[in-house]
């Protein structure tokens, strides 16, 4: 009937109850992720308050086009993940798999564009902390902006990599026919994680690129 053997734990009374538990667990985990980033956002708020000019200048030297393209890429990948869940839910595993492949490709594209940006910064010596030697923005505080930029995008990039690995694993399970209208919680949880990655970027984009 589409529910693989051994899906329900012995301690749960029903699959619905177990799904509810897993979903709640995932949301709690996402809450911890949000608070993980909250630390960096706090640092950002404090230093933007202390160094408004340096932040404006530093922001203007980021690659706005690349940032915007990346935003579109991530939003679209979020969309395809939502579609993948939709297709699994309506018993169309092949379409779901295609959507997941698209998502993973977009994740790779995101990382590629980010890598290009990082390379540019490296050549300009617009590096964080003590490595900062960017000639165009010599004012104090700019090093702090770049520290924050690298910490925030770096941690976010790490999450993209993790999300991508999770989605690859889920793609594999989808291809095995694990998910259907009867049971798709695994896919859904992976999707939630990916949406969170998107959610964080939605805030990083205006805060870093559009000051």
């Amino acid at each position: 009937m589409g529910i693989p053997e051994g899906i329900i734990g012995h301690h749960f009374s029903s699959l619905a109850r177990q799904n509810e538990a897993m979903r709640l667990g995932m949301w709690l985990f996402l809450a911890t992720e949000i608070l993980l980033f909250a630390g960096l956002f706090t640092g950002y708020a404090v230093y933007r308050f202390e160094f408004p000019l340096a932040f404006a200048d530093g922001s203007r030297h980021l690659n706005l086009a690349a940032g915007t393209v990346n935003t579109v890429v991530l939003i679209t990948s979020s969309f395809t993940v939502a579609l993948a869940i939709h297709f699994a839910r309506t018993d169309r595993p092949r379409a779901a798999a295609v959507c997941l492949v698209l998502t993973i490709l977009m994740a790779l594209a995101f990382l590629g564009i980010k890598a290009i940006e990082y390379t540019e910064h490296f050549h300009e010596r617009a590096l964080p902390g003590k490595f900062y030697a960017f000639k165009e923005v010599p004012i104090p505080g700019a090093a702090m902006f770049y520290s924050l930029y690298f910490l925030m995008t770096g941690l976010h990039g790490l999450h993209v990599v993790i999300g991508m690995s999770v989605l690859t694993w889920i793609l594999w399970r989808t291809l095995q026919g694990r998910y259907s209208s009867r049971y798709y919680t695994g896919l859904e949880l992976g999707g939630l994680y990916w949406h969170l990655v998107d959610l964080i970027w939605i805030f990083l984009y205006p805060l870093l690129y559009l000051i």
Partner: protein
Amino acid sequence: MRLSEADSHALAGAPAPTYLEDGTTVMSWLNTRDHKRVAVLFLFSVIFFFFIGGVFALLLRFKLLQPGPFFVDAISYNRLFTLHGVVMIFLFLIPAIPSAFGNFVLPLMIGARDVAFPRINLLSWYLYWIGAVIAIWAMVHGGADTGWTFYTPYSSTSPTQVAPILLGAFILGFSSILTGLNFIVTVHTLRAPGLSWMRMPLFVWGLYATSIIQILATPVLGITLLVVTVERIGGFGLFDPARGGDPVLFQHMFWFYSHPAVYIMVLPAMGVISECVCAFSRKNPFGYRAIAFSSIGIAFVGFFTWGHHLFVAGQSTFIGGAFGILSMFVGIFTAIKVFNWVGTLYRGAISFKTPFAYICGFLYFLVFGGMTGIALATTSLDIHWHDTYFIVAHFHFIMVGASVMAFLAGLHYWFPKMFGRTYSEGWGLVAASLIILGFNATFVPQFLLGNFGMPRRYYQYPEHFQALNVASTAGATLLGFGFIIILIYLAIALRYGERSVPNPWGSKGFEWMTASPPPTHNFDEIPTITQMPHDYRTHEPPGVIRVA
């Protein structure tokens, strides 16, 4: 589903073996999904680290017998107090009650067969050990000398092994998060039929509130430690004053976790006391709702008060006042609990057993420790007391006086439940009085030292502080003896103790609904709950397994 030995026994019609008998190989423990076994693994781990931390403490106290250089050099002394703090907080206090006792009795109390995510539960224990091993590795390779608070810029410039300790604490944070996550989901989805929120045992309320803090606060510590690690290893971070960084920002982020973390240590302790007070006075809780909601209140308001650690740290006067008054409200919730515990005794049937001795200690230490906490939060008094031994004494009153007393109360209360054996009551009372006496002798002089003006983390101190320091060291020795006695008689009881009846205390807490020790799957049939916990209007002789 794995067909366990318990199942095969049940099929054969024999009484189900206890969880202790269901597999005796090492792998059956290391690869268990049973919340009770994970709890026992945690229990032995935290006790192990408690003694390690205790040895550090005694070495520190020994050095402080003399005002000048003595016994160890300054750097070793600094490493010792750092390790004492790190071990006691991250490896003992935070996991002690939730991960050991919570894991064991929470599913029993809510009539569940296991926690929601048994594998994650086991993972939490492994993460604990990974974190611990990294921390131990760092200790062996020179340790760190920053204090457990890791204040920057000292921690980003100290030549010692700070990075691995930070990493260890980061991983231990993960372990703590996973336990909290598991508990919240378990409470939401696995309660037995009839167990409404307003019938949940108070210990479960305490653990639920604790879990909220673990979920919301621990990640902030994680990112803070990560940023310091990046600053140390990578040379860039957010706290370097040479590049406009603000060391006070670190303190804000650190205490955003570490103040609520105090409640991670104390809320489960309060839950244990709520259970024990009812069980040993054989009385329903005086104010069930008040105790339950004040746990949630503490979890919530506990987040609004972190700035009272920064009154003299360069924080603004205005925000200091805001944090000061918000801190007063946390005190109220604790006061409500204390009054209700005392109220529970009214017209009860009090039996002065070993756990009850710890309850008395707990009440006294919590009231005194808590009131000095309120005094500290009055802002101006904190100026003189901040970073002196007064603070040291205050938080030891809360952490040792309240949390460790509750840990010991729970250990004695649930010992028959966990291992099906009884311990020597006489030795129990001897150790309890020794510990309560030793504790006072250790930390009351430290309050006075703080008043006198001795800053904390002092290797050498002006000579006029010596008398009080000697008194404190003498008390610590007594305290150490007390703990060793407990270790000995419990170890003996574990092996040679008399078999306990299923409910030796005649308690009507829900965890006693099943056998002691419980079978692997906890209940042959999931019970239906029809009443509040600790309803002593009727009597059933101890030893009868109630199926409610």
